[in-house]
């Protein structure tokens, strides 16, 4: 006869391996755009999955079958907040564009829109934390309003407003940069 606790643990471990496989890139992308540095993003990603593993059985129980990506991103968000509190520093202001843009965009994109994309990336870093995070979740991770709301602990309505304001503010920043010649 199989010990039910051990068999259950094996099943939970297998589910966690699947969660890891599906969302490693999401967590890393979030971490990278949040902290703006590959080294810190790796640390944040690793800590996120280690902490997620510790609390995974309870999260499974409480999720009621809903996707666990918002829960993972919320862990990453909390760890990033602690990271800045401990080190008393703000996120890096300069995303390393040389490692992001050339690796993930076509040559045509790079020729036609590289400057504009650079301005947008720089503008995202100037947004208040909650607006920046909402944009990262929507556009880098492809999360819908409901998922973002769960990750940020807000209502769906408040999240929709937050995203709208974030986009408007970013448009303003990018326009001002374009008119000011990137000064």
């Amino acid at each position: 006869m199989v010990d039910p606790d051990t068999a259950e643990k094996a099943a939970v471990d297998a589910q966690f391996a699947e969660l890891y496989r599906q969302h490693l890139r999401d967590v890393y992308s979030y971490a990278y755009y949040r902290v703006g540095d590959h080294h810190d993003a790796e640390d944040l990603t690793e800590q996120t999955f280690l902490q997620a593993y510790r609390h995974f059985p309870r999260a499974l129980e409480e999720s009621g079958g809903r996707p666990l990506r918002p829960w993972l991103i919320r862990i990453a968000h909390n760890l990033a907040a602690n990271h800045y509190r401990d080190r008393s520093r703000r996120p890096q202001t300069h995303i390393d564009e040389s490692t992001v843009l050339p690796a993930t965009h076509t040559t045509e994109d790079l020729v036609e829109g590289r400057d504009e994309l650079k301005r947008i990336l720089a503008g995202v870093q100037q947004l208040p934390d909650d607006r920046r995070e909402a944009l990262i979740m929507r556009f880098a991770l492809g999360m819908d309003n409901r998922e973002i709301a769960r990750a940020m602990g807000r209502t769906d309505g408040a999240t929709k407003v937050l995203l709208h304001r974030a986009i408007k503010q970013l448009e303003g920043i990018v326009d001002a940069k374009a008119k000011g010649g990137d000064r």
Partner: protein
Amino acid sequence: MSDAASTEFEALLRRALTPVEPPAELGARLEETLTSISLAAAEELESWELSAMRDPRNWARPAAAVLAGTAAGVALVVLRTKQRSKQRRRASKNVVDLAERTLHDALNEARRLWP
């Protein structure tokens, strides 16, 4: 700004905030953590008192540990095999070749976990 311009801006935003692939070393480090799950179950087996094994009533516990290690190991084989899928696709000449390479990879991973 008009709706069309706004939609265009969102398209640009999507291109700027493109997903970032994690470095391979990070995946390897995290895999080690998952492997330790499998090893923990194996250690439970090793630490079992040999004398206790003489009593058939005690056989269920180590058998469950074998099962746990095997299940976690299967998850790892699948994980590692899937992670190399891009490399295999690039190297394959056709679909049959890709299937052969995938099977070969999975068998190698299984041999590493259960020598």
